[in-house]
């Protein structure tokens, strides 16, 4: 493949150039430049998808230096799927923010968004451990900036809490990488996988890396920074955070877990991760039930949904390749469906709060009568989160159920069912509030139609995933380092 045609470098250059341009251009030019950038990003991701499906995984050596010395990027099926996912969700949130934010806020939003997008693409395509660290730092700063730039008391406190947790997480990750480099002598992930030798150093390194990444993905005991951050930020920002940002550290966790075959050598660790996931599902669901603010309910639902994804780890059982394949595909499909559903739900929730003007649940009375479109979008996203049949969430849960049944770990089935009941409870509770009749006329503000349609389209995609879930599953089973490492 000729170097110039490969879209991998363009997926990084466009957002970085977009960030520099949108910082320099005067305010009203920034949206125009960003719209052009968004379309080129979407085009580049589609080209990458086309190339990976037809020519197999793409490898790209940065600065023309090969892997152990230089840095190489790789685009296998998994990475391409995530690049496509982040392109769709980020462009939807960008268009939403374009109409939703004031001119001054929007001027600052664009460069932060472009840096976030660049770091996401950098992480999906990275194949070098230190490169992942710098990508994570870029992601953290962009996310903290997006939370903090709403510049009011609640978002400032949330951003400080988020920054401290994320910095500790990335420093633990860096310490793990340092130990790995000392033990193996290389930073590139493929040469690490080849020369991997289990010993005390690698075990400590893996624990540190997993600990740091669990903190950044806000898995159960380390989740306290997430609800205020996702609940307190501006609507398009919380959608971006919940749908994409926490998935980045989860993606790195998954890569390390499968490519270095940690599940084979530390089965006790996988059971521990499963327990954390179960805790996240139950605790997140329970807390979501007790929240009074709409966005906090959705934020705690994110904590619960991360638990479902972490359930994938104990099901990757070395001896049963059939169950592991099902678990891997179910987990990725759950992650994908959650990204679209949660983004749609946050945007719909933002619309509802805009209509009532008050963030709490009680003031949602009468919304079903006066704003059915937003409620429908919220409902569609809820269907996918609950895992009701037609949605992508249902297929994912069904696969996880099958995998845990096949690998004989019945307790995960109990957790999955309990979790579904809890998520149904807290979503129907929100609906209960909206059905209450108010005798008042339609005195609520009406958001622009485009805001409602964007929320509806994202929730719709998560439902469509239910019908077309074969396509992403094909994508992730394309040959690549992850597929070789799976049992």
């Amino acid at each position, binding site marked *: 493949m000729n170097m110039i045609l490969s879209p991998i470098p363009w997926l990084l250059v466009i957002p970085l150039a977009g960030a520099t341009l949108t910082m320099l251009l005067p305010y009203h030019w920034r949206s125009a430049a960003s719209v052009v950038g968004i379309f080129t990003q979407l085009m580049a991701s589609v080209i990458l998808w086309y190339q990976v499906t037809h020519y197999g995984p793409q490898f790209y050596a940065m600065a023309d230096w090969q892997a152990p010395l230089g840095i190489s990027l790789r685009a296998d099926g998994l990475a391409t799927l995530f690049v496509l996912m982040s392109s769709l969700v980020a462009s939807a949130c960008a268009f939403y923010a374009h109409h939703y934010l004031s001119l001054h806020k929007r001027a600052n939003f664009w460069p932060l968004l472009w840096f976030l997008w660049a770091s996401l693409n950098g992480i999906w395509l990275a194949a070098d451990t230190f490169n992942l660290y710098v990508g994570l730092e870029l992601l953290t700063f962009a996310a903290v900036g997006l939370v903090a730039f709403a510049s009011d008391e609640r*978002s400032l406190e949330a951003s400080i809490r988020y920054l401290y947790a994320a910095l500790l997480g990335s420093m633990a990750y860096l310490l793990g990488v340092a130990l790995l480099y000392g033990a193996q002598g290389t930073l590139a992930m493929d040469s690490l996988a080849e020369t991997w030798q289990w010993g005390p150093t690698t075990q400590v390194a893996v624990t540190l890396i997993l600990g740091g990444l669990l903190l950044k993905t806000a898995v159960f005991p380390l989740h306290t920074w997430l609800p205020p951050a996702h609940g307190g930020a501006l609507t398009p920002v919380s959608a971006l955070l919940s749908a994409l940002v926490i998935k980045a550290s989860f993606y790195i966790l998954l890569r390390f877990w499968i490519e270095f075959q940690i599940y084979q050598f530390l089965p006790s660790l996988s059971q521990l991760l499963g327990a954390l996931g179960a805790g996240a599902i139950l605790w997140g669901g329970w807390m979501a039930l007790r929240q009074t603010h709409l966005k906090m309910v959705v934020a705690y639902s994110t904590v619960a949904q991360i638990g479902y994804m972490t359930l994938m780890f104990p099901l990757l059982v070395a001896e049963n390749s059939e169950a592991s394949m099902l678990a891997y595909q179910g987990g990725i499909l759950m992650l994908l469906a959650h990204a679209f559903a949660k983004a749609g739900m946050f945007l719909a929730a933002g619309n509802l*709060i805009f209509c009532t003007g*008050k963030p709490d649940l009680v003031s949602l009375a009468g919304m079903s009568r006066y704003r059915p479109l937003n409620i429908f979008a919220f409902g569609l996203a809820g269907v996918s989160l609950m895992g009701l049949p037609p949605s992508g969430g249902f297929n994912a849960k069904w696969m996880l159920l099958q995998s845990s049944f096949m690998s004989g770990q019945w307790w995960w089935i109990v957790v999955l069912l309990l979790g579904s009941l809890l998520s149904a409870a807290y979503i129907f509770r929100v609906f209960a509030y909206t059905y209450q009749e108010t005798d008042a006329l339609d005195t609520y503000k009406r958001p622009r139609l485009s805001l409602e349609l964007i929320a509806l389209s994202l929730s719709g995609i998560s439902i469509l995933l239910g019908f077309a879930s074969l396509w992403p599953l094909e994508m992730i089973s394309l040959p690549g380092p992850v597929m070789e490492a799976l049992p």
Partner: protein
Amino acid sequence: MNLLIDLTLLIGILAIAFTCIVSRSLFRSVVFFILLGLMLAIGWIRLGAPDIALAEAAIGAGITGVLLLDTLGHLKKTGNLENDEPAPSRKRLVLAIVSSFTLVGLLLWAVFNQPTPAINIHLLVTEAMPESGVSHPITAVLLNFRSYDTLLEVGVLVLAVLVGLALQTDQQAQDSLPGLPNPLLHACLTLLIPAMLITSMYLLWAGSDRPGGAFQAGAMLAAAFILLHISGIKLSSQVSHRMMQAGLLLGFGVFLAVATSSLIGGRPLLAYPEGGAGMLILLIELALTLSIGLILLSLFTIANSPPHQTYQGGDHGH
């Protein structure tokens, strides 16, 4: 003899770090942190890393120390430096001790069971040096072999300034730090500033074959700017906001432009043309030095400029 030096450094660094953490007064904690930065610089010399010693002294102890002291001064001026906040609860103390000891135990277990690494990247570096365009290995790694990391890292710096600017809601916020009208300081400036600029350019030029480079030179330039800023000559009043913004982005923009130009020329991203590596690296480093100097200065000025008093709340609710 070497063992003696290393052990004294080890004990000294750990003692200073301990005082820095447990000292009652915040001012002593910050001063000891700066002292720790300087001791670490000596440590890096012992480890055979003069580049990092320069960077640690200039950036780690210097710029971070100035930022911390400035925040301290702000807290002191508004009269609540030593607010006698209740000592954290015993439960927190026990948790902290237990977790830090497990961390140290794990790390010691890992350090003392080090396997011999299979690959030695160092040999690859020496092999690839001839085509790297520079003769100093660290600059070669930073700006040629792993230049993608450096590009992202400069992006991180620009992003930190961007977040600071986004929070500084009032664009023309006048700085709360009045210049120090000290005659001796102004007299010495005429001597110190030129010396700092020359050293900064020397560090930049030396980077191609000796320890030095864009980051250390940028930190030196930032020190000169901050010294001017403290003594009352505000760069932000001389240079228009638009120019300042362009200066912040110059380094990152030039780096990105050179990277994409190789893309258009049919070579992979960030691959320098045949023989042109040395010149392009110098061009990038020049732009980086100026940008890093301005970025570190504006990180300092943003921190101490008061925000707009009336906060514009979130626009359409949250």
